[in-house]
């Protein structure tokens, strides 16, 4: 089966979720990648290691305009006769995949967490991670948008051939005025390690406890909703049912009670560590490792222990 994957290659390097999408697609069929932007050929050729046999690159436009990308992917899908089209369900995938679904009359499975099952259904998270659903696509063509961090990239092959491609992307109707990318921050939705703080940290002046540990680990930082609502931390750090849903390998929660709405956004994490003074805090029921103690004492000790571990490894 012919599978087409769209990846974004506008950045300095190709993001991990692109390798995930290619690895995923390789499990379904023969993979062609389509991309736009300025990434050089040697960078794109790497996608072959994860299973792409060919990379089509349209250098006529950069950026993330969802109408241009929709037209590019539609042209490429026609060109390679793709039956399945795969995106990462990141912010670009969320904007493009639904448009493409209408354009191609192809059923969309958004937020897939695994490969198609024996019965052809595709698993997704529903109810903000409180359950799984299995989706059947009723159209011939399908589009799958894969939830980031759902599978590990696997290197299996050699470099892929890179070909210039004209995707008839057309013009953008949206003008970009300014792009703000805070330096050094690790984007939360893609982070593998996350350190998060709640109201138990008492105030923004204590956040160095969280950021010190995050820096030591190379982790992103997050927070509970009241923390963002009180402007102790920026809105984009708010995780949970009404914030960002994340599924890192490690989620460390300090001074967070573990309300059901908070858990909904983090319960896909592989390993959860909870630090809380209250041994009855509901979060302990969702945790793998728990520390009953004062975050003001435990966090610096943990930061020290990580430092020691990093020095000796």
């Amino acid at each position: 089966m012919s599978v087409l994957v769209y990846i974004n290659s506008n950045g300095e390097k190709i993001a991990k979720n692109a390798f995930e999408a290619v690895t995923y697609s390789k499990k379904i069929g023969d993979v062609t990648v389509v991309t736009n932007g300025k990434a050089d050929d040697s960078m794109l050729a790497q996608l072959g290691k994860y299973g792409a046999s060919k990379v089509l690159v349209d250098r006529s436009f950069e950026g993330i305009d969802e109408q241009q990308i929709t037209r590019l992917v539609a042209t490429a899908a026609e060109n390679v006769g793709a039956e399945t089209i795969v995106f990462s369900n990141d912010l670009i995938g969320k904007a493009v995949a639904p448009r493409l679904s209408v354009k191609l009359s192809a059923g969309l499975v958004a937020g897939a967490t695994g490969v198609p099952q024996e019965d052809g259904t595709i698993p997704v998270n529903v109810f903000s991670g409180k359950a799984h659903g299995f989706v059947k696509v009723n159209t011939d063509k399908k589009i799958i948008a894969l939830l980031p961090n759902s599978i590990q990239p696997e290197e299996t092959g050699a470099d892929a051939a890179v070909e210039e491609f004209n995707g008839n992307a057309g013009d953008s109707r949206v003008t970009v005025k300014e792009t703000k990318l805070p330096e050094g921050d690790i984007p939360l939705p893609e982070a593998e390690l996350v350190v998060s703080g709640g109201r138990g940290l008492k105030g923004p002046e204590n956040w160095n406890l969280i950021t010190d540990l995050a820096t030591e680990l190379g982790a992103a930082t997050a927070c509970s909703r009241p923390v963002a609502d009180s402007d102790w931390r920026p809105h984009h750090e708010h995780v949970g049912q009404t914030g960002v849903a994340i599924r890192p390998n490690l989620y460390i929660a300090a001074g967070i009670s573990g309300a059901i709405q908070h858990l909904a956004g983090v319960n896909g994490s592989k390993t959860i560590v909870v630090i809380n003074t209250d041994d009855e805090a509901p979060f302990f029921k969702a945790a793998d490792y728990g520390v009953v103690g004062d975050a003001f004492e435990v966090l610096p000790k943990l930061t020290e222990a990580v430092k020691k571990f990093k020095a000796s490894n």
Partner: protein
Amino acid sequence: MKILVCISKAPDTTTKISFTDGDTKFDESGVKYIVNPYDEWYALVRGLELKEAHGGSVTTVTVGTAEDDATIRKALAIGADDATRINVKPEDASQVAAEIAAYAKEGAYDLVLLGKETIDYNGSQVGGMIAEHLDMPFISLAEKLDVDGTTATLDKEITGGVQTVEAELPLVVSCAKGMAEQRIPNMRGIMAARKKPLNVVEPTNAAKQTSFVKYALPAPKSAVKLIDPNNMDELVELLHNEAKVI
């Protein structure tokens, strides 16, 4: 300015999720429904603020059955002028988007606003689909939206940051946190909502491109391993050797 706000209901956030009919249906017994928070807190309230600033109207549209009327009345109580319900059970994003697009086509709206996702199916699909049906630009995950004449300026979330963009109306915008502050309906709003028009229209019976065939609950977590707060070396060791995450 004519503004259309898509409103959907969603189970209250404290709902314990379970399934019936051999795990093929969401168990709705005892479930309390609310207006999907993203639709209510951000899309609807920002729509009302724009109307207050520039004049015009705010209409809500919902794909649903009579069971949804209470949710729709809440949106009217918060301040929408009138509401439309497209009378069919929503079962799939492609169906919902096609129905709303068919309705919106008739209305020549300047803005179609909706929440960034629903908190039950979390698909984030409907906005982009409507935009493609209507051939309008789609600004996803907008945190800020201002309109000057026929030009909209928006801040949207992008990977690792925020982008400020400009586009001509009409537009479809999915609304995220930052867009507005929640409004609690007052008594007057609730009384007025009873008299506001809730128009019921028949669906076009758009096809469903996907179906949910079964559900499962996540495997229960094994019991938490408690670590001595004075022994963080042990925690690091476990994270490295047992959990293998660092």
